[in-house]
């Protein structure tokens, strides 16, 4: 019964989505106020029904209803309750439902925090989001019904993929999807602006907080995925340039470009068309990413589903969404105009250069991800594009971007002077060069790669400090008053940039100083890694709730001083009989000790991975700092009390609204 209620709720949600997608857009074009007013209630109603559907599916999982195919294939009665709940989005169908739920949450957030926006604009934005929702609901109902029954019911389920039975994997997909789906708001704002022919600074101010928030979620989502891969896959890598990772990284690159481009559009009114194009690209790649991962065209740990019907629907939906929005862009963009002029040396030009670099980087990832698929589809041979390609492309592309990241915040809008910048930045350059030359010696060994990475990181931090100093010197009063006079978005930017620096430090030091030893260890054997001694004390049998396995004991000491005992495990999950490696990690600010069991070789000996990973946590720490920077920027006052000013510009003929105190950014 419960699954049928869910199914029915989905159908009702589809009908509401159709209403939300059609009436408000037509109403806005033909100026029919009643149709325009449909947008909000339709969106809110749709959320109610999608939430009911999601609740029904979650209930089926938690209550072990194995007459539902999805539950029978992805859960098991022995699975702990929290993972049964998380299994709701562990499958292809369930994750689509989560996607739609997120989309509806964002849509309703727009209905709540858009009281001060003109009604036609809101109607168009909600309409576009409704159409996106139609696409996904149709896809679910036609090809991937999460509530499909299994008759006769299975006695027990086939279990959730053991790789997904992990707290990191429980929150990674919702975070990632919040990011993906969040770009739909930026996309909807862009399409609404194209439809309405209005694209100005106020438009940029409206869409900025949404874009930033989506970007924060995506950053955290990617970071969680990377962290999960590090501790769960058992061989200590943190980024593999796997197509699935690339699928989330491409929207991130475009989203990053979009945030910066929106800043220019808001402050200077420039880059309008470019901003719109970026918004379309960011969301198109989010769609592409969702479908690449979910359609089974890829061949990796994440791709479980395979069904040609799905592939065709996906291609059709992508074509409609991407071609439709690009056609609209080609048709309406000339009307939008280019905006203010600027000099070759100006903050605008630097942001533009960064934007181009980010877009090229995203394009190169796209090439490396899709080209093998195309070749394969056309039967031209099978190839793979591995990490060396991406490394070779990314470092040269991101180096000038990082360099500009330091100069940009110091350059004037419209027209900057190079000599002035040089004077301001000479100390920053000096400090970074000295850091790059000396710090690697302190760390133990000087290599060009480490020096180069530290140069980039120090450059970001030093230039941020210089930028803050100059910024403060323009205000009066004591230091605290001057610090308080800066808007939060400014601190947000500095913080996010420093996050990039922390990330670069992490990557550089791990690559430069890590020790990886794959060794055969008999009981009592010791091996050295990164100055630590690891002694293998044998393995014992363990039994978990839904697995059995071997648990190793590895004694770690440094200079004869005992530090701790690490317990890596090798598990075999009962239902799927799938072996799994559980690494044992001692996490520290200055480095991780990482031990994982390979396999039992002979006479009680095991092959063991013993790694020392200096500063590896800085990689994820940097991502968290970036996201915090984004959140800090979101708290900026101008997003919370923008109403009065924007209303004066925007309202025009529209009636003044009371109660404009609502937060615009949430």
């Amino acid at each position, binding site marked *: 019964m419960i699954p049928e209620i869910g199914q029915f709720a989905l159908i009702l949600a589809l009908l509401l989505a159709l209403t939300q997608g059609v009436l408000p857009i037509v109403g806005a074009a033909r100026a029919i106020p009643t149709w325009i007013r449909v947008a909000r209630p339709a969106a809110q109603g749709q959320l109610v029904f999608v939430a009911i559907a999601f609740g029904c599916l979650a209930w089926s999982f938690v209550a072990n209803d194995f007459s539902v195919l999805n539950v029978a294939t992805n859960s098991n009665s022995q699975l702990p309750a929290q993972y049964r709940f998380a299994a709701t989005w562990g499958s292809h169908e369930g994750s689509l439902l989560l996607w739609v739920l997120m989309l509806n949450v964002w849509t309703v957030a727009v209905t709540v925090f858009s009281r001060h926006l003109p009604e036609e604009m809101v109607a168009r934005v909600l309409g576009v989001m409704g159409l996106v929702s139609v696409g996904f609901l149709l896809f679910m109902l036609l090809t991937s019904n999460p509530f499909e029954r299994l008759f006769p019911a299975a006695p027990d389920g086939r279990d959730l*993929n053991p*790789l997904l039975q992990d707290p990191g994997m429980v929150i990674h997909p919702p975070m990632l999807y919040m990011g993906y789906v969040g770009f739909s708001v930026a996309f909807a704002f862009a399409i609404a602006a194209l439809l309405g022919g209005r694209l100005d600074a106020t438009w940029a101010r409206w869409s900025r907080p949404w874009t930033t928030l989506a970007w924060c979620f995506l950053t955290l989502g990617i970071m969680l995925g990377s962290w999960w891969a590090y501790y769960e896959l*058992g*061989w200590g890598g943190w980024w593999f340039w796997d197509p699935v990772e690339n699928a989330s990284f491409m929207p991130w690159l475009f989203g990053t470009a979009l945030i910066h481009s929106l800043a220019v559009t808001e402050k200077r009114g420039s880059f309008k068309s470019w901003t719109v194009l970026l918004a379309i690209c960011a969301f198109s790649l989010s769609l592409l990413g969702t479908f690449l991962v979910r359609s089974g065209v890829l*061949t*990796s*740990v994440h791709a*479980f589903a395979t069904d040609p019907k799905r592939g065709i629907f996906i291609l059709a939906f992508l074509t409609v969404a991407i071609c439709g929005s690009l056609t609209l862009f080609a048709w309406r963009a000339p009307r939008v105009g280019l905006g203010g002029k600027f000099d*070759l040396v100006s903050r605008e*030009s630097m942001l*533009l*250069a960064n934007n*181009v*670099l980010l877009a*090229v980087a995203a*394009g*190169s990832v796209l*090439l*490396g991800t899709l*080209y093998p698929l195309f070749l394969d589809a056309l039967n031209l*041979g*099978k*190839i*793979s*594009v*591995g990490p*060396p*390609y991406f490394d*070779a*492309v990314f470092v*040269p*592309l991101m180096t000038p971007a990082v360099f500009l990241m330091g100069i940009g915040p110091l350059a004037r809008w419209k027209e900057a002077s190079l000599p002035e910048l040089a004077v301001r930045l000479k100390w920053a350059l000096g400090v970074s060069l000295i850091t790059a030359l000396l710090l690697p010696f302190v760390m133990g060994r000087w290599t060009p790669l480490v020096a180069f990475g530290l140069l980039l990181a120090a450059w970001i931090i030093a230039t941020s400090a210089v930028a803050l100093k100059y910024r403060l010197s323009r205000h009066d009063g004591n230091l605290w008053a001057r610090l308080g006079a800066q808007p939060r978005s400014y601190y947000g930017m500095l913080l996010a940039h420093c996050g990039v620096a922390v990330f670069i430090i992490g990557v550089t030091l791990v690559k430069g100083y890590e020790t990886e030893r*794959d*060794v*055969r260890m008999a009981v009592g054997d010791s091996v050295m890694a990164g100055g630590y001694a690891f002694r293998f004390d044998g393995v014992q049998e363990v039994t978990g709730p839904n697995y059995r396995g071997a648990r190793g004991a590895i004694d770690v000491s440094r200079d004869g001083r005992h530090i701790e005992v690490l317990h890596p495990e090798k598990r075999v999950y009962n239902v*799927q*009989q*799938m*072996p*799994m*490696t559980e690494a044992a990690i001692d996490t520290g600010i200055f480095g991780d000790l990482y031990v994982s069991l*390979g*396999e039992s*070789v*002979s006479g009680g*000996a095991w*092959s063991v*991975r013993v790694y020392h990973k200096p500063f590896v946590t800085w990689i994820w720490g940097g991502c968290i700092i970036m996201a915090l920077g984004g959140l800090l920027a979101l708290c900026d006052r101008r997003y919370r009390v923008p109403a009065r000013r924007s209303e004066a510009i925007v309202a025009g003929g529209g009636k003044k609204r009371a109660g404009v105190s609502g937060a615009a950014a949430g």
Partner: protein
Amino acid sequence: MVIIAAGLGVLALASALVLNAFRSNLVFFFSPSQVMANQAPQGKAFRIGGLVETGSVKRADDGLTVRFRVTDTAHTIAVVYTGILPDLFKEGKGVVAQGRLGADGVFAATEVLAKHDENYMPPDAAHAIEQAQKAQQSVIIK
């Protein structure tokens, strides 16, 4: 105008960089039959795939060097690998290995991939087997 020219210049440079890196880092896939037919490059890294031949896995005394044979049911190729094998590496199951072909005809793998799902066959490996079986069938028909 200057900005557009500069922008295009940067773009051209970046594209050249990307395409060059792309061309020199492609890794091609060959089935054991293709390797036997000398279609695979000498001295350049490539990938092979197929099934791990049952009974072929032999471990050296150091516990880390493994020798096994990869088959596409028509031809087999000997592989040597030093390191820890992935969890799902098993005799009779699909495998993909990346490495170079040595002068002795043994494929020295630098990386061995077996995917995470007990039923799951790496598509490259499945492809190799399918091709080999097709080839055999066409021989029989002739």
